[in-house]
């Protein structure tokens, strides 16, 4: 008996030792001197990385982004590829876990030698991979609206920054005569930063923030918060909740007798996909602020929606982050073709000189070479009983990205 157990312990120790050695080796490669990413251009194809959460709590949203990235790649390959090379996508699962995102991006850059990586959703995952891309001098294309106040030289931001989504959302509320607002958000970096900006805007524009509440990510008990909102008699609610919390919030909101007519809610994280999972019964009539809706008119969007539904199913809606992801691949292609090379510094230089445009589903988008963000038209939409969102207001022309809100006098001192 004793012997057997001894042998077992030995076996365990051996396994552990191997694991430790392997881990140490892994560390060595990642800590080695890095003079920039090596891109493998030897074969007939060019590899790019897709880094999305395919499992865990964020899979709900990020799988749709991965799908539309694949659609863009397929379309580009069918029309001849980039610089004569077909794109070979390597998909990695970030598993809704921020250290995993960093690990996988390191793998994509130093083992697969990809030309660029597309993906990430939450700000937390972007913050986790940012140092990796900066150290290895490799490119990340980030397709989701975010809180601004960031400008990494190795990230291209194809979603909206605050002055293209939140500020227009507030402009809209102001134009509707809604002067007292209640802020409800999830308790993490995006809502906290967004609400700081909203409060600065309100102070300068004669609006009043009558309440501010945060719920931990994943909370589903909103009765007290909704009670506070109802008691505040605010004109409108600005909602920066993310994920499952939205479901519980809107169910509670309706049960409490609050409606879009009495107290409209403007949400910045609810797109077509989320509408479907919350239920139109609870959402009809409420507002969202984005840059793209499935219903946005235009030939480019008709083509995108048709292609997406043909590939993934007629019941699958298209949404803003999916569109921004789709666009990001085409923008990268345009930059590479202008540079005539896959090399990161040359691609960046090509973007810097300007003139990178794409006739996107949301309309013509232009890369701003200085901030590496994208000019986008802001659109306020109203959720319909059919689950689709229709535009009720837009900014008229694409808004120049201003991640640090330098052009807004009320925003001084925010960053």
């Amino acid at each position, binding site marked *: 008996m004793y012997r057997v157990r001894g042998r077992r312990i030995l076996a365990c120790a051996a396994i552990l030792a191997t694991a430790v050695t392997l881990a140490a080796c892994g560390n060595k490669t990642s800590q080695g001197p890095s003079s920039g990413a090596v891109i493998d251009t030897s074969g007939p194809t060019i590899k790019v990385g897709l880094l999305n959460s395919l499992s865990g709590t964020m899979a709900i949203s990020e799988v749709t982004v991965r799908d539309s990235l694949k659609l863009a790649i397929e379309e580009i390959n069918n029309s001849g590829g980039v610089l004569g090379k077909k794109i070979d996508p390597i998909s990695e699962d970030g598993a809704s876990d921020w250290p995993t995102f960093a690990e996988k991006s390191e793998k994509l850059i130093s083992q697969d030698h990809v030309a660029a990586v597309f993906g990430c959703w939450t700000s937390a995952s972007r913050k986790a991979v940012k140092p990796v891309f900066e150290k290895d001098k490799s490119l990340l294309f980030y397709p989701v609206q975010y809180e601004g106040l960031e400008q990494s030289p190795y990230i291209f931001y194809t979603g909206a920054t605050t002055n293209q989504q939140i500020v227009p959302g507030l402009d809209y509320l102001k134009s509707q005569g809604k002067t007292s607002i209640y802020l409800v958000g999830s308790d993490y970096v995006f809502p906290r930063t967004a609400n700081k900006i909203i409060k600065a805007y309100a102070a300068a524009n004669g609006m009043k923030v009558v309440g501010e509440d945060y*719920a931990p990510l994943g909370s589903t008990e909103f009765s007290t918060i909704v009670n506070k909102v109802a008691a505040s008699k605010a004109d409108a609610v600005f909602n920066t909740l993310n994920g499952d919390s939205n479901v519980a919030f809107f169910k509670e909101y309706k049960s409490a007798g609050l409606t879009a007519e009495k107290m409209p809610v403007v949400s910045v994280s609810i797109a077509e996909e989320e509408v479907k999972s*919350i239920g139109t019964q609870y959402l009809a009539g409420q507002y969202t602020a984005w840059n793209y809706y499935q219903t946005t008119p235009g030939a480019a969007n008709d083509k995108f929606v048709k292609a997406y539904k043909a590939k993934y199913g007629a019941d699958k809606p298209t949404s803003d982050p999916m569109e921004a992801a789709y666009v990001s691949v085409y923008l990268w292609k345009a930059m590479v073709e202008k540079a005539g090379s896959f090399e990161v510094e040359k691609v960046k230089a090509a973007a810097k000189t300007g003139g990178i445009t794409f006739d996107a589903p949301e309309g013509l988008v232009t890369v701003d070479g200085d901030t590496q963000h994208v000019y986008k038209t802001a659109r306020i939409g109203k959720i319909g009983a059919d689950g689709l969102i229709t535009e009720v207001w837009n900014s008229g022309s694409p808004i120049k990205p201003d991640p640090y809100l330098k052009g807004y006098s009320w925003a001084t001192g925010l960053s």
Partner: protein
Amino acid sequence: MTLVLSQLFIGSSIGAVLLLIALGLSLTFGQMNVINMAHGELIMAGAYTVYVLQKTITGAGASLLVALPVAFLVSGGMGVVLEFLLIRRLYARPLDTLLVTWGVSLMLQQLARDIFGAPNVQTRAPDLLTGNVKIFSSASGSDLVVANSRLFILALALLAVAALTLVLRLTALGRRIRAVVQNRDLAAVSGIPTSRVDRLTFFIGSGLAGIAGVPLTLVGPIGPTMGTNIIVDAFLVVVVGGIGHLKGTVIVAFALGMLQSIVEYSTTLSVAKVLVFLAIVAFLQWRPQGLFTLRTRSLA
């Protein structure tokens, strides 16, 4: 005044949700000492039952009433399979049960993802349950409004407790369950088929989880990860209430609901969560065995 009253109502409705999700667990964990980490997924199965029924058989109107017995059978059936295949082999090994059932919970989550897709699904609430009742209007213009869905949950929770109490007190099965809990060996030598009683207890406990899943579709998301959000609260209620006591579970569920709603109103949700946990830690320092303890003559 209105606010105090409406917060009190919110407190009791949070308590009712806690009670519903903890009730099945108070049977399987409290009475049988099985740490079933897959309890949350059995609740999820109940919620998905509503979704499937609405898709296939009934409209929104009657769906919840039809779903209650069906969810009981679905989750109960899953519980029996789980008990038969895994848990009965691990009765004396609580830590192994914990790990195994946690693995089962991950598998069930992935199964839900494969069958229903990763995104949450939506169900339609019956029109009757989306409205609210105005209890009174005060002069200051703030009315006391009570949501119908919350009233339904409160009624269902109390009904479930009453039914379970009746079964445990009055039926032959209930007597056997209590006998096995109090002294398994003595029950066995008295001719009670303890393994069959175990399976039935597990069936009822799991079925109650399914019932809890039905009204949750009115207040929260229905998705593969909904169980993980629930499971901690459920264990909390049972542990603080005291192992093996239904009474403790009921009292603690409502006490925690009240505490949560009152603290949250004057602070924030995050602070309320922290303070509730601190209160629980302090309470368990004072009474590590929970609110009530089961007194038995068994030496174990």
